[in-house]
């Protein structure tokens, strides 16, 4: 469960103070599917970074499954990012010059596993339909395939939360729908999904939409999830 209480984030660049978030209160229960929307500069990426333990709030509290993340050490935060949270980025962020399989294995390597690593990685690749691209490097894959590998990497440690920052931003329509289908499936299997997007179409796949403007939540509405009606 994700709980933000009066979370603010201030950046200081020289003399100028930038308020990226101005007191966010947010509660996301297990198994939710939330879309976070807003214009550029609304703070949605900052929010995602804080939820994903990549950054710490300047003030307020972030409780992840009841634990205040500010009380955790760097290593503990790294472990959370490894086991509890899976990231999917707009620019895929796969490690170049390594194969899909090695990319997907990486979180397991950092988790200290060695024996079952290969198997689990192959299973994750199979779950996104790319087991026959295991030996390809990112440069040999299309955008959609790369993002699917990224999704496989995100779920290889079986995290309870998936965070996707504009996952379809660099993809064409068909690839975008593929990715969204995967996310919906993963959500139905019990994972919490928080998605940043600026496209209404994509946001339609969520069951709740949170809109940000200038660092504040301006609306937070449940909605009918779009039903997947594809080939």
């Amino acid at each position, binding site marked *: 469960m994700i709980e933000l209480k009066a979370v603010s984030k201030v950046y200081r660049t020289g003399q100028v103070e930038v308020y990226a978030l101005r007191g966010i209160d947010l509660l996301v229960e297990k198994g939710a599917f939330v879309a976070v929307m807003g214009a550029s500069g609304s703070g949605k990426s900052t929010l995602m970074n804080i939820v*994903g333990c990549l950054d710490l709030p300047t003030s307020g509290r972030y409780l992840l499954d009841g634990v205040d993340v500010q009380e955790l050490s760097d*290593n503990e935060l*790294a*472990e959370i*990012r490894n086991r509890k949270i899976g990231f999917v980025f707009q620019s895929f*962020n796969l490690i*170049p010059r390594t194969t899909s399989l090695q990319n997907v294995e990486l979180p397991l390597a*950092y*988790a200290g596993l060695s024996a079952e690593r290969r198997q689990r990685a192959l299973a994750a690749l199979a779950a996104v339909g790319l087991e026959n691209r295991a030996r390809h490097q990112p440069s040999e894959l299309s955008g959609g395939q790369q993002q699917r590998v990224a999704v496989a990497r995100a779920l290889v440690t079986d995290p309870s939360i998936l965070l996707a920052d504009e996952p379809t931003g660099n993809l064409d329509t068909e690839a975008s729908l593929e990715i969204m289908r995967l996310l919906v499936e993963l959500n139905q299997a019990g994972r919490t999904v928080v998605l940043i997007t600026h496209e209404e179409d994509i946001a339609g796949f969520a069951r709740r939409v949170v809109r940000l403007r200038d660092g504040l939540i301006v609306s937070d509405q449940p909605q009918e999830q779009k039903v997947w009606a594809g080939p």
Partner: protein
Amino acid sequence: MSVQEALRVALAALTANRLRSALSMLGILIGVAAVILLVAVGNGASISISSQVQQLGSNLIVIFPANQQSGGVSQGFGTARTLTAEDAQALDDPSNAPDVFAVMPVTTVEVTMQHQEQNWVTTLSGATEDYAQMQNRDMSAGWFFTDTEVRSSAKVVVLGQTVVDNLFGGDPAAAIGQSVKIQRQSFRVTGVLASKGTGGLINQDNVAVIPITTSWNYLVGGRRKNISSILVQANDADTVEAAQQEATQILLERRKLSDISEADFQVLSQQSLLQQVRQITGVLTIFLGAIAAISLIVGGIGIMNIMLVTVTERTREIGIRKAIGAKRRDVLLQFLIESMSLAGVGGLLGIVAGVGLSALAASVIGSLSSGSLPPPVVSIPSVVLAFGVSVGIGLFFGIYPANRAARLRPIEALRYE
């Protein structure tokens, strides 16, 4: 992530950009090769000189007057007034010097030897019948003179191969029984010493030996019964030091002195000579190695430089790794292993280059100087040390870049273009 794993990842990263890796390890490669080569040069000189000193015979002690130049076997033992025949006799006393096996007084002088129309300048030694045994020499023809001939001051001479080459055309058998003239007196050749090679500091074949009594009785200056040196043979290699001390003691007592530094003689054993030689060449070798080691440091700086560039280039990648769960330690380890692999591979290649160059130099020097310059000999400890140091350099100079990588904040790293 295990070390093995990290090693694989590091090697993959190095082979990904082969030109850059090759150029960055060049400094280490050259440094290691230079260390190995220069140490080999020093080592070769040491081995060469040591083996020549060893040819003197490991049980041998040489006593010679102190006003002579010391340390150099190549120096002639000129006219000596401070060592006497009585000194030699005193050393031969088993009750005073139980570890002494044999004593031989020696006179040395340069003479021109003549046979028919040929002249040849050689070093003439006056010695006793123990000469061949003490100097570790075999006969290639004839016999060495006997104690009877010493007692009777017989005019007999034993020649070295170089003298035979120049006066008798090279065949030892042809020289036996012939007569040569030394200081216008006739001597009969009774034997030829087997060749000990001409390489190195002294030519051991350009010698002639006559009984010391003959040199006292018949050669110029002999009336003074001068002695250039006294050779003392210890019972065996283990008792050399004891014999050395006994001989020193006896001679000091005869002169009513208590301290060797006041004495007019010097006692040198092959062992102490060897020690001196090893010390000097050891210092020389270390000096050469240290100079070469400076280039290793330069190589290390090169590695640090390239690792800093690598870390900056891969900032985004570091951010990704941290985002998916890499801890600071994981990132530190990754880049440390990369820098150590870089240095290690450079070190290995440097070893190959250093050993190869030493072998090349050995064959070139061998053919150019026909044996008088010592060839480089690779010293195994230098190889191991150089490799260990290169990996250590990879570690030391890699720490700063690896630390910078480990300390990157994930989101800042992810945002890096």
